[in-house]
Structures are given as C-alpha cells and as structure tokens.
C-alpha cells in the first residue's frame, strides 16, 4: 500500500515541478564594464502575464539567484527601460506596469572580497513607449 502512495507522491511532485517552469522566458543584458543589469521576463502556463525581474550581476555570470542583487520584481510592464547613469547608478523607467517589489539598492558580493553596492532610481511615466531594455554606454 505504501509503495503506490510514494509513487503517486513522486508523480505529483514531478507534475507540479514541470508546471512551475516558465512557458516563455527572455533575458536582456544591459552591460557596463565589469557589471551588467539582467532584465528577465517570464510567462508561466501561457497566462499572458509577464513577470519581470531586474537584477545586477557580474558580466560573466548568469541571472543571479541571490535576491539581494535584485532591484525590481513586477509584471506586465510596458516601455520598460534600463540605463546605466554611472558606474554604480542604474535608472529603471517604464510607462505602465505593476511593481511588486522595488529596492533602490542591490549588492553583488559573490566572488568579490568586498561587496559592491549599486543604487537604482525608478521612474514611472504616463506616456506609452515600446517595451525594450536599452543598452547604455
């Protein structure tokens, strides 16, 4: 009796895990010297909702798993644009969208003897623009 339950549990876990995978994903990089800002857009279950995460990381790294490296999490943005203002300052602007979590600082500490801190400013504009992540510098 116990074996079928375990098997059913494993199958359920597999099904749930596969359901959690994004059906569409794109990552746009906005580079600046040794660092880059990654803008990741994900859609789950063909829901039509685009979840967006904006994080800073080393130029040779993939999308960061450490949440302290992220500035923004939200969805359904239009006119999203990321721009480097200086070595440690990032500007994030968009025309419309839902900000679930924004933090005006992010820290990259992995593979660095001292943590590197970045500052971000958030601008929400009313006029609609195209949905792009532009590369500055």
């Amino acid at each position, binding site marked *: 009796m116990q074996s079928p339950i375990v098997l059913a549990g494993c199958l359920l876990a597999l099904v749930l895990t596969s359901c959690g995978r994004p059906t569409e994903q794109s990552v746009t990089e906005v580079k600046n010297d040794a660092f880059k800002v990654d803008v990741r857009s994900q859609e789950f279950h063909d829901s039509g909702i685009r979840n967006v995460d904006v994080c800073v990381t080393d130029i040779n790294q993939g999308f960061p798993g450490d949440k302290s490296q992220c500035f923004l999490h939200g969805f359904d943005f239009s006119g999203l644009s990321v721009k480097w203002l200086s070595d440690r300052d990032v500007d994030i602007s968009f025309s419309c969208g839902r900000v679930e*979590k924004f*933090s*005006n*600082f992010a820290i990259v500490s992995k593979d660095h003897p001292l943590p590197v801190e970045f500052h971000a400013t*958030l601008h929400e504009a009313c006029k609609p623009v195209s949905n792009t992540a532009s590369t500055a510098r």
Partner: protein
Amino acid sequence: MQRILTLALCCSVILLQACKRVTEQTLSETTNGAFKVVVRTQEISHSGTRNVDVCVANASSAGFPDKKVQCFLSGYDFDGLSVKWQGPRVIEVSFSSGRVSRFTNSAFVYPGGSVPEAFHTLLCDGCGSALPAKAEGGAVSSLQ
C-alpha cells in the same frame, strides 16, 4: 545537558526580544477625503537607524494599519521624505536620500466591505528637500 541548552536558548530568545524594543516612534498623517497616508518612523533599541513605513488607511481609522496590502513603502534613513496626494487615488512619495527596502506601486484599503479601494503610488528618489519627514496635500497630524 539537553535541558540546560534548551533553557539557555529560551532565555536568549526572551532577552533578544526584550532588547528589540521601539525606543522612538512617530506617526504623521496626510488626509485626503475619506483616506489618509500614514508615515511611521521607528527607531529600535537606540540603533540610530530610522525605519520608515508608509501606508494608506481609512481617514477614520486609528493607529497604524495592520494589513500589509495597505502599505507600499518600507525603508530607512530617509532625508526630506514627503508625501503628496496627486489625485483622489494617486499618492506620491518623494525623498532626497534614503534606503528603500520595499516599494510597491499599488496599495489597497477595504473601507468597510469586501470591495477594495485601489491606490496608485509613485516614488521619486532624489526629489525631496533635505529636511526631516514632511507630509503635504492634506491635513497633517503627528502623534508620538
């Protein structure tokens, strides 16, 4: 041996909880019609760090909102923090410097039923004057 360890752990937790007390707190309100924005500043254990929470609430409600959906900004060490009603459902928070730990551009209030009132919030970093926390665009009251 295990009992002593458990007892020591419990005592440490109690001590830590006792140490983590609010040593200073201020509340300021910006009212606009039936709603208000409440700005709470707290200092914990004379740390020198001022934690700030900004939430929207019914104008008639007392105290600081307890529902998370009502709050749209958490941070600390703000200079020139200012709250302004830009419309009946639009709130702008500006500051000259400070650390934003969490900001969301929407907040909800349930004014006495199951239908929520949605508010849109805007953040302006580097916009405020370098003065202590200030509230604009409505009746302001401070509580201590």
